[in-house]
């Protein structure tokens, strides 16, 4: 199973990559919107974790683009700021506020991939 992690914070990118790799996933990373869409096309991931604030584009905008291309692909919005009452976030499968404890993220990924 392949996870695309989109986050402009390089440390967080690396943390996610190492932790999720240990869980047995293949992890690819992108640091901005352009990279993210390229990876999305070329790597064909099974699930995406998507930061909302990115240097080039809005994560919500990316969410829409990805959903248009692959409506069934599960996407987890993973952000530093709580955007839960922003309606557009509802288009994603799941929503999580970034935490140093990745337990919740891991179980969320597991659950969404099982559902697939």
């Amino acid at each position, binding site marked *: 199973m392949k996870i695309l992690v989109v986050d402009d914070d390089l*440390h967080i990118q690396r943390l996610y990559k190492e932790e999720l790799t240990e869980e047995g996933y293949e992890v690819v990373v992108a640091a901005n919107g352009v990279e993210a869409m390229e990876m999305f096309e070329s790597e064909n991931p099974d699930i995406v974790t998507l930061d909302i604030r990115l240097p080039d584009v809005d994560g919500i905008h990316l969410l829409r683009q990805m959903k248009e291309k692959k409506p069934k692909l599960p996407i987890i919005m993973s952000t530093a700021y709580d955007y839960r*009452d922003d309606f557009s976030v509802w288009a994603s499968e799941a929503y999580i506020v970034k935490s140093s404890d990745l337990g919740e993220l891991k179980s969320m990924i597991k659950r969404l991939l099982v559902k697939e």
Partner: protein
Amino acid sequence: MDHSLVTEIRQNLESIIENFPDAIVTFDLDGVVTSWNRGAEEMYGFTKAEAMGRFLPFVPGFLVDAEREKIGRIRNGEVFKDYETIRQKKDGAILDASLTLSPLKDTEERIVGAICISRDISDKKRIEKELVRRNQELSRLFFISSAMRGTVKLGRLLRMILTAVTMSDGLGFNRAILFLVDENRGSLKGAMGVGPASSEEAFQIWSRLSLERKTLSDIMHDIETGPLRKDSFLDKLTLSIEISLSEDTILTRAVKERRSFNIQDVKAEPLSDFILTQQLSTQAYAVAPLISRDKVIGIIWVDNHFNRRPILDEDMRFLSSFSNQVASVVESAGLFEQVALAEQEMKNIFDSISDMVFSSTKDYVLTKINRAVSEKLGKPAEEIIGKKCYEVFHGRNEPRRKCPHHKTVRTGKPYVGELDEPHLGGTFLTSSSPIFDSAGEFIGTVHVARDITEIKKLEKQLIMAQRMAALGEVAARVAHDIRNPLVSIGGFARRLEKHLEGNLKEYATIIAREVAGLEKILSEILAYVRGVSLEKRMVNVDSLVEEVAGVMKSELDEKQIILVKSLNALSEVSMDPGNVREALLNILSNAIHAIGRDGTIIVKTAIENNYAVIEIKDTGCGISEEILQFIFDPFFTTKGSGNTGLGLTISHKIIEQHNGRIEVESKPHEGSTFKVFLPLESEE
């Protein structure tokens, strides 16, 4: 439906909205104007072209943040009805407006904006202010009117005077007319006339009177008790006369020169008034001024038209002394009439004031109330007047110390104060002005009490909204600049933890745990700033309380605190269970903290007046009165460092968003009782 019909209906609707006199504006969720009707153009001065596509142009700068917060709440489906606020016109002028704001949905029921209907209530506000200002002035009139009650009415009094002038055993003139000075208009106005219309009528009256043998006092009695009519020929003629004091005639000279005139031949007197020569066809007449307290208040005009008897010097002396006698009586009767009018006018004003207005004696007995008082109390005036004001308004058997009336009674000075009236269910801005009698003795007070409960609430909301908006901007940046590094620090510490041994592992554990603590605090702050959104469903109140108690069980056991439950709500309430659980947990955890060790917490649930009530009572240290007012404020804490001071603020906010409320009672050293009220039926 036929497509053209739909189009037609839509066009009709649009044209109604376009031409509606109230300002109707729609805007999207960013506050950008999407439609602007003619009412809005008139009220705010911006043309449609100027307003479209802009952020709400009528919101004054200092309210922009509060407005955005409102839009945020509309986004959650909230509706604001008749809420009063301030708006700014294109020319910068501020106006008071009453607004109704409701969400605008697209065909798929998604909220895409809002519709705002506003009405200019500046005039209403100004009138209300003006009325309060006049309160004191009116209180004096109040007194005069009651002091003079029982005095003879002006109309009857004048009739008596003129009859006395024309009766044969009075002054014996044929006709008499009374003119009164109207100071406002600068004129002499005919007030009343007595005398026959023609020689025939004069003859009939004289013969009848001689047959009836009525004396002057008989006739006076008749006038006082009989019906008062002002419809004789002379009355009607008289009432139509108005002579400007700027004209130079005999009548105006009598006023200006304050003296009598005896005109024995009209033709020889060029200054004779046109009205007298033409309408009354008088040949000879006399005029005497009515002087009261050095002021000419009117004149009496007489002639002997029918019997042609010349007016002699002794007639003039008689007329003058009579005039002097009656002048002061006329003046006071006139004053009385003015007061009566003023009183009537004031009663009308009183009754139309939406504020409660009432007067009470220095012994606290209510003497006058307006309609708003009986409406507020739901009782007719008769059941209120005569009662003690503190019984009626405060439901007590002694005066309240804070009551402005009480202060005025003690000091004799006017007072203004805000007063919470639990008995009337609200907060009132009350002003009290003393009334003095003619001897300067304090006899009571007049009050105006305005219900400011709503305004208070709005004020609080406004302050809160402004505080939050400022905090919101900081929070968004804090979230990114602090949370990301925290995640990295904590995340890698956890990774170290897995790969290290001994002391080093322990160090990594400490870092990971501390970071987790910081993240939790950050989340609390952000949750508070963002506001809480609700996902409501029907939840059994008692089971929720059980669940909350369960979560705290280990902590309660550890601190040897006994939890007593008495759950009798037995019903379901529409709520966001996660949020309400959070709210109750915060309160319960506060109760535990207040006790420390060894104590009792009693949790009760019940149904009271359409509310599910959850009561959490502890035997802890209690909260002093000074602190009690701050406990729901953000960042207020007595627990020392490591605590955000947001727990109760969040609880309060959650319960408020459920249209409920939290009440707190507390006594230092005895404990506190928190009561959470959740409406059984949500008001949406």
